[in-house]
């Protein structure tokens, strides 16, 4: 899909973000620099469209990414002229200041401004999130974590904050906490296949991090299998899902462990080895299919992330020699 200014540019690869930010002069020229919000003005001049403001916001994000601070500032000025003291616009302004800061001292100054704004209005979610992101990028992880927990205490229905918290815990190696936060995301977005797969990844990493192969290990591996399977069930040909499924089943086959006696009804138990084998075969075949079609640029198979396809190819090639021996 071609990049569009209407959709959020957060997930775009660098090349597309650059292409977007290069549209900035055109957009800035083609739209009027001030939109009258007065009563009579709207009767005669063209009515403002919400798309324009979304465009500006997305332009700010991609321009900051590509270093075009001037265009970003211009977009921000227009937003500020129209919406004034809106929380979200303030957060965008803070983002620009963060991007323009040259050293740590200036970042500290921005942080102080955030603190001041939060003192005036302690429910300002966009600013709170900016402050947390700033703390995290300044390396003050524990501060960021406690600020996030504080935010989630009064707004526990914020899936963005939960997934940020999960990522934060994960970066500190606190797997159970990361899993808990990810499960909260899943409660709020029950059919998000990427979250299912992410949870599977977290379970897999938590299981393999300790190196033990006891009952907790098996339980977590079992849940990882189930999470990956669910993500594939929700989204056919989901590369990360198949990749994870293959990774987990391969490891389990290598372990060749007998499923431990099920201790109680609460926990998931591993499927029998026959099922694991079949899952592994399925994942291998599907991954091979995805890699083949995607590298041939077949219709309907585009849009996979190049890095992910390369990783899948590598995983498959690791497998190849052992496959020939059999």
């Amino acid at each position, binding site marked *: 899909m071609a990049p569009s200014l209407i959709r959020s540019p957060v997930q775009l690869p660098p090349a597309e973000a650059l292409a977007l930010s290069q549209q900035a002069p055109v957009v800035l020229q083609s739209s009027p620099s001030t939109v009258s919000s007065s*009563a009579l003005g709207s*009767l005669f001049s063209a*009515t403002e469209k919400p798309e324009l403001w979304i465009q500006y916001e997305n332009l700010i994000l991609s321009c900051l990414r590509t270093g075009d601070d001037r265009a970003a500032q211009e977009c921000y000025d227009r937003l500020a002229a129209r919406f004034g003291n809106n929380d979200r616009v303030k957060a965008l302004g803070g983002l620009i200041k963060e991007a323009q800061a040259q050293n740590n001292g200036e970042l500290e100054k921005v942080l102080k401004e955030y603190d001041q704004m939060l003192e005036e*209005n*302690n*429910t300002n979610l966009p600013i709170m999130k900016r402050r947390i992101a700033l703390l995290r990028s300044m390396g003050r992880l524990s501060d960021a974590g406690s600020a996030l927990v504080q935010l989630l*205490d*009064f*707004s*526990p*229905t914020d899936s963005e904050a939960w997934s940020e918290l999960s990522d934060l815990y994960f970066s500190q190696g606190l797997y159970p906490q990361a899993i*808990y936060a990810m*499960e909260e995301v*899943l*409660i*709020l977005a*029950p059919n998000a296949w990427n979250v*299912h797969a992410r949870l599977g990844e977290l379970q897999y990493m938590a299981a393999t991090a300790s190196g033990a192969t006891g009952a907790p290990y098996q339980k977590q591996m079992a*849940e990882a*299998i*189930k*999470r990956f*399977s*669910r993500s*594939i*069930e929700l989204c*056919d040909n989901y590369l990360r899902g198949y990749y994870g499924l293959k990774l987990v089943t391969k490891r389990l086959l290598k372990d060749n462990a007998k499923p431990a006696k099920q201790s109680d*009804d*609460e*926990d*998931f138990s591993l*499927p029998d080895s026959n*099922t694991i084998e*079949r*899952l592994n075969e*399925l994942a291998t*075949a*599907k991954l091979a*299919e995805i890699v083949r079609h995607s590298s041939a640029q077949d219709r309907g198979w585009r849009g996979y992330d190049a890095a992910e396809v390369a990783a899948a190819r590598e995983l498959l090639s690791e497998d190849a020699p052992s496959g020939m021996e059999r």
Partner: protein
Amino acid sequence: MAQVPVQTIHRDPQLFYWILFPITIVMILTGILRHYATVLMSSAPKPLDLRSTREQRSLLHGISLRTNFHVLSPRSFHSRRDAVITAYESGAYLKDPERKGQPPANPMTDPSSMDGMMGMMKNQMAMIIPNTLIMSWINAFFSGYVIMKLPFPLTIKFKSMLQAGVGTKDMDPRWMSSISWYFLCMFGLQSVFNFLLGNDNAASQMAQQMGQMGPQAPQMFGPGVDPNKQFLAEAENLAVIEHHSVLHGVEQRLLEGIRV
């Protein structure tokens, strides 16, 4: 059969220009004025403070846990449920935990809900005052005239609607009086306002009246609702859930569903 003779009334053609057009234009202008008066008078909704945001979102969190419990494994669901129920029953999320168990405050004395009522009053006033003025203006100047003849036949029942203010028994209902034209404008100008002011305008009182008459959805966090009772009810809802997980047997479903 003899044809009923067509009624003809000789009217001054000037009536048309001096009554029909002025009434229509005045109606449109008042509509626009009312729209901007409403826009000016409406106060921005007051942002919620921290405690009430927390109260509402905690309840929503419990509700989403109840609706989406199936994505969790049994163990994590049970631990979450226990924690949430304990917090709900102890009133940990309440805005002011000391007032737990007391009847909710009277919405008339609560300053935050007074704001909403004042807003409603203002809207009502913006509707009533111009309508009264225009109606009395029309009554004072134009009552008793027949101003136009509709180009299509109508049954006798329309007489009272179209000939308000003209007490002639035998007149064809196609004839229309000025006050009826006023009513017709009042009900029929909605699309003109939509064209001039956009879709969500406040010019036409009809839309507002419709909104008031329609069945009102029960307010979730409105004034007069006891949050503690809501929390207790939600805790009970959570307690009776029989957990099943969507993850049970997902491998088998996958192996059966997907053929390579």
